[in-house]
């Protein structure tokens, strides 16, 4: 999608821009797809269109650094087109998509294909994440340099962990040539075994095989040691346990180059949901919904800075795939069209996070982790802007999702706060 040619004045809103420490009533003037001015009471240029943002928050475009667009190969679950439509609908102007497609994004040609699709009919910026290992097999490095030259912004074998310590060490070393983060899906598969939910009171009651917190923790512990030795950029995807977060916090204080993301479902639901929902397969994802203690620790981490960003781990599946017995259903839920409302209602409304902190976690934070433009409304930067209502009532409805995936445990939830308009380089991608 090309930048919007012309002028647009977004006026009367509360502008929150964590990159400039801004939180005040300002007008925003966009010219030819870039932020031209940010000021109090800008006089409308004669040839400008206007957007009345009274009562609304105007923020840098939200960035979801962990989504699965499923293209190429699994277009029945999602495509670049439907996935980015879902992004725009959810207030996101950029997404980073994981490499576990078919074929795997472990080569320049697949990276280029994804970017071409995004250019052709993307409703958001797409940052491909290349595979760490060829075929996600965890055996040898993929051609990371080639993928970065084609546009990849990070590497990850997400969906699978890098089990080999040696391969992980080499990835952390090699990725430094390109100044990109190595994103780990931290899970020791030998500890996970046949586990399908968090190992705890509820797996015990329900008789379902458990995935212990230690499955994540031993991998994070190992990787932090490797990150320290290599000085590589290490990023923990969908961090879900109290102990992993403690380790990341400690590593940060020791100047180890580590960042982490958490997913909204781990901040809002616990393992009890599997029982409460009557074995709903929309409570099955990896990492699994954890204990209340883990959830509470993650909330603390959001507030104190141990967590760098919130990412949805948007994982669309076909309804037929999820409509099976719990034990055999695929892991994952969609998140692009639920994240902002869930965070506003469950994090900001009860006072766990300030609005500026939430905006940081959803825009400036992920932009910094990925090292991409965005996450700012500074004059001259691309006019990627998200306008949202901070507390108006909304009911989440999977029937209205743009995503092909309807697999969400939040269908029918009444929440406060929702996206109203999304602008990608000044062009409207969501009409409120």
């Amino acid at each position: 999608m090309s930048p919007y040619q012309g002028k647009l004045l977004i006026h009367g809103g509360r502008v929150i821009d964590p990159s400039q420490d801004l939180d005040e009533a300002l007008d925003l003037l966009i010219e030819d797809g870039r932020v031209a001015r940010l000021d109090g009471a800008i006089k409308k240029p004669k040839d400008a269109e206007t957007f009345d943002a009274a009562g609304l928050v105007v923020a840098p475009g939200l960035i979801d650094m962990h989504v699965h667009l499923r293209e190429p190969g699994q277009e029945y679950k999602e495509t670049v087109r439907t996935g980015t439509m879902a992004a725009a609908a959810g207030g996101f102007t950029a997404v980073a998509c994981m490499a576990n497609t078919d074929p795997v994004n472990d080569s320049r040609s697949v990276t280029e294909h994804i970017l071409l699709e995004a250019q052709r009919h993307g409703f958001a910026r797409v940052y491909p994440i290349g595979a760490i290992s060829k075929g996600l097999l965890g055996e040898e490095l993929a051609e990371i340099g080639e993928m970065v030259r084609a546009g990849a912004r990070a590497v990850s074998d997400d969906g699978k962990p890098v089990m080999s310590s040696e391969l992980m060490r080499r990835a952390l070393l090699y990725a430094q040539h390109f100044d990109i983060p190595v994103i780990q899906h931290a899970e020791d598969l030998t500890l996970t075994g046949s586990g399908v939910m968090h190992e705890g009171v509820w797996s015990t009651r329900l008789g379902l095989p458990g995935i212990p917190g230690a499955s994540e923790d031993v991998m994070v512990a190992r990787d932090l040691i490797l990150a320290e030795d290599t000085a590589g950029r290490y990023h923990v995807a969908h961090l879900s346990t109290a102990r992993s977060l403690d380790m990341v916090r400690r590593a940060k204080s020791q100047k180890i180059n580590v960042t982490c993301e958490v997913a909204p479902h781990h901040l809002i639901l616990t393992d009890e949901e599997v029982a409460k929902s009557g074995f709903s397969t929309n409570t099955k994802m990896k990492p699994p919904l954890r204990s209340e203690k883990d959830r509470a620790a993650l909330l603390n981490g959001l507030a104190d800075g141990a967590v760098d960003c919130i990412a949805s781990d948007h994982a669309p599946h076909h309804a037929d795939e999820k409509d099976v017995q719990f034990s055999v259903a695929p892991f994952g839920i969609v998140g692009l069209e639920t994240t902002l409302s869930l965070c506003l209602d469950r994090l900001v409304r009860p006072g766990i996070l300030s609005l500026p902190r939430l905006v940081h976690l959803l825009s400036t934070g992920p932009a910094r982790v990925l090292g991409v433009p965005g996450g700012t409304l500074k004059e001259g930067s691309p006019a990627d802007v998200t306008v949202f209502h901070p507390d108006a009532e909304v009911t989440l409805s999977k029937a209205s999702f743009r995503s092909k995936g309807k697999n969400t445990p939040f269908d029918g939830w009444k929440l406060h706060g929702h996206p109203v308009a999304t602008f990608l380089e000044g062009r409207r991608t969501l009409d409120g």
Partner: protein
Amino acid sequence: MTPETPIRWRRKDLLGIAELSPAEIELILDTAESFSEIGERAIKKVPTLRGKTVLNLFFEASTRTRSSFEIAEKRLSADNINFSTSGSSLEKGETLVDTALNLQAMAPDLVIIRHAHPGVPHMLAKRIKAGVINAGDGAHEHPTQALLDAFTIRRHKGRLAGLKVAILGDIEHSRVVRSNIHLLNKMGAKVTIGGPRTLMPVEMEAMGVEVAYTLEDAIRDADVIMMLRVQLERLGRMAFPSVKEYFQLFGLTTARLAAARDDVIIMHPGPMNRGTEIASEVADGPYSVILEQVTHGVSVRMAILYLLSGVHEETV
């Protein structure tokens, strides 16, 4: 024994013990008492469920439970049809939901289901109009087993409240232990579980039991000992090194029984591994009520079929 205000059965399904009230449990046990006499007659058949159709869906191997249900159904004059895994459409790639919808189209009154995965009976119950009886879902629940165990205990001890019940063995993979814990706790018994640490699920205490890690500690002063089958197929998955070593640590022998009460009864849901979790001298000995459990299983399942079929409502 009978509650002061007789309650009526209201549930469409029997999916687990966790959701039952003590009054509902008593209703089933009392109803089973009235059915038990039929099994002693020369002609073991009553017309109670004539014209009712019962489907027995066993997606996992079962001899005892399936035969028990079939006999219960036949004694009540229900028409029954059996499906088992081999040759079923599930093996041909049909999803469970489609199987359920097809079965529903045949308008059965009751569906008995056993499946290796927890939650499958619950999934089925949401999709079909027929009453669903859980005959064992993975390591989750096996409500009819817990009910027949309670029936057997009550026959011997006259009560459940205040008894000390020890349940020993492979706790992790046992649906029997989970249903029994729910039932015994609701009825006021005190449950101690025991077994190797490698087969003990985390946070068991949260289910309201005491946990012991030696056989002697677990059975001390026990009124009832339930032995669980060691799932030998799981050997080699690091749970324990050998059958020999398991028997040394957790095998029930006559010598070890001394720690329990003099009038202890020994139970086992079957199938038994003699010489693994239980010595033959105990299994066949004077304290054993293992075969009685099987007999009572038929009465208890007749009671459940009767209550869920709704015929008691139709005749009111």
